């Protein structure tokens, strides 16, 4: 098992190198001169040259790349042009908000999609099966920002069940003590149930938006792989041996059917991390996505670069975790190593 992990970790290295090169190239090679922007409209050629020198833009590309990697290694993502704050600190402080939203959305989606897919496969042709098919086709066509707005309209304006879509807490609540950065967990740890309620009611709509978005691929995959497993011979044997339906489906079929679903999770995460940006914009969620969007609109490149890099590293790490999950679910993977 340890050997598998080590082998898998080694394959991450070229990917990470590729990611760093791409994020570097995005700023340095492409047109547009940060020094001109930095210097402002009243700049003289001398002041631009000076700024270029202070930013290290007058050096050769390989030299700049070495400096960039060196900065990254020291956790320095540069400073935001508009606020002057270090990007790394800003991203670190906003990351829990995004992570809480994305993970809770994924949790909701798995909690609905997996049982739905199983029932659809077990009772093929039933209304659950048809529902599953409709969701799988319609779900991939829904623009995530549009779903979010529809939910806001119904649950905030029409029904008045949820609070205004403005961030993680309503105006009267104070943010909980920072332990994990996840408000739901922090408020429970400190026993602050009023704030927990506030945080939960703010979180549920954006998380549901993300959940609806990722429902389709997970439900579709669960159904397809459950169908394939249920048709296999070991299931026939299990049934012939007189095991109960419940046991055959949940113990034998489910575990085997989960492998392709876990693989799909990699793709789902790619979509989720992107969709996260849009959902944060709709719900004014103070995560790294809305930070990057604000910076983008002001042509402030360092935060965007830091954001892209953070997201890519997160995504690589998530894929790594997914691969590890294989070993937990499927003993054959462990033996092969």
């Amino acid at each position, binding site marked *: 098992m340890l050997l598998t992990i080590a082998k898998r970790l080694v394959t991450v290295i*070229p*990917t990470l190198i*590729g*990611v760093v*090169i*791409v*994020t570097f190239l*995005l*700023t340095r090679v*492409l*047109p*547009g001169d940060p020094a001109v922007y930095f210097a402002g409209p009243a700049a003289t050629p001398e002041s631009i040259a000076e700024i270029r020198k202070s930013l290290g833009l007058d050096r050769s590309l390989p030299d700049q790349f070495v400096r960039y990697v060196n900065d990254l290694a020291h956790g320095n993502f540069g400073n935001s042009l508009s606020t002057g704050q270090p990007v790394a600190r800003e991203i670190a402080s906003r990351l829990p908000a995004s992570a809480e939203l994305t993970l809770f959305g994924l949790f909701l989606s798995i909690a609905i999609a997996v049982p739905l897919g199983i029932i659809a496969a077990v009772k093929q042709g039933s209304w659950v099966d048809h529902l599953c098919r409709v969701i799988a*086709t*319609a779900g*991939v*066509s*829904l*623009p*995530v*920002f*549009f779903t979010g*707005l*529809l939910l*806001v*309209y119904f649950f*905030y*304006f029409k029904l008045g069940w949820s609070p*205004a*879509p403005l961030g993680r807490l309503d105006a009267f609540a104070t943010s909980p003590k920072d332990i994990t950065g996840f408000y739901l967990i922090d408020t429970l740890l400190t026993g602050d149930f009023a704030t927990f309620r506030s945080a939960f009611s703010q979180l549920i709509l954006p998380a549901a938006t993300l959940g609806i978005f990722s429902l389709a691929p997970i439900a*579709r995959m669960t159904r*397809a792989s459950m169908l394939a497993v249920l048709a296999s011979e070991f299931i026939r044997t299990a049934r012939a041996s007189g095991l109960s339906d419940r046991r055959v489906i949940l113990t034998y079929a489910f575990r085997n059917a989960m492998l392709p679903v876990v693989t799909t999770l990699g793709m789902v*995460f*790619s*979509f*989720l*991390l*992107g*969709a996260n*940006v*849009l959902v944060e*914009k*709709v719900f004014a969620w103070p995560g790294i996505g809305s930070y*990057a*969007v604000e910076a*983008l*609109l002001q*042509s402030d*490149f360092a935060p*965007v*670069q830091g*954001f*892209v890099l953070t*997201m*890519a590293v997160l*995504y*690589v790490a998530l894929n790594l975790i997914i691969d590890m999950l294989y070993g937990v679910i499927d003993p054959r993977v462990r033996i092969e190593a």
Partner: protein
Amino acid sequence: MSEAGAVVPPAAEVSSKRPSDSILGHARYVMTENPVTGMSFGLFAIIVLCAVIGPYVVPYDPLASDTAAALQPPSLRHLFGTDLLGRDIFSRVIAATRLDFGIALASVALVFVMGGFAGISAGFFGGWTDRIVGRISDTIMAFPLFVLAMGIVAALGNTVTNIVIATAIINFPLYVRVARAEANVRRNAGFVQAARLSGNGELRILLWHILPNIMPIMMVQVSLTMGYAILNAAGLSFIGLGVKPPTPEWGIMVAEGATNIISGEWWVAFFPGLALMIAVFCFNLLGDGLRDLVDPQRRT
């Protein structure tokens, strides 16, 4: 995968023998075989029609504002209502079709050429070509795709052209994978060896013998990614990239209507969002239908 590859070439060769009636017959078969696919073809025709003549037939100028008639709910005068500046939303939604469809079409065409060529070269030549192309597409896949698109647009500059380029780049790995697999299956097929034996150069074989044979499956890929391309472009303009405000475009119209949603004027964001959803839905159905026909083994 390999079986599917082996099934396709004969079909393609048969249809190339009698192009005149087989193309028509095939098209009719495609439409009638599955009613859902037929419906999506109908929707597709409407979208194309809106894109081509839409801006000329809409009842109001999509850019003309009329502050006296701001934020009116849908009525017979204004089918989809009016927005904050009193512009007719129906006219704007129809007029926007051209831009949205155009962005998606341009980006898909771009990636079709880039990804298709890189993919068949990788599959056909193997070796270093394969390794380099594979490394490039692996690196792209290492990013969450929408995030990479944001980064590319930010770096290249905030224009519609760059949205097209970014959308093409994030679709690159998908095209490479399909083209590479299909070309790889055929690199030593009988007809390729025959062509080689009669003295054709490798590049000529690639372009004149391999490429036509993988066209059907590449076209399926085009219709499957069209929907994603539209969603992606609309998402980018929703966060304020690319398309500038007065221009009618579905993503930016939803963004403009987002503030009205909270005060109950749902129609400002709803109709452009609905148009976007229908367009994406249509392309996804179309892609699924085409895939079932070209490659029955992958039917779900």
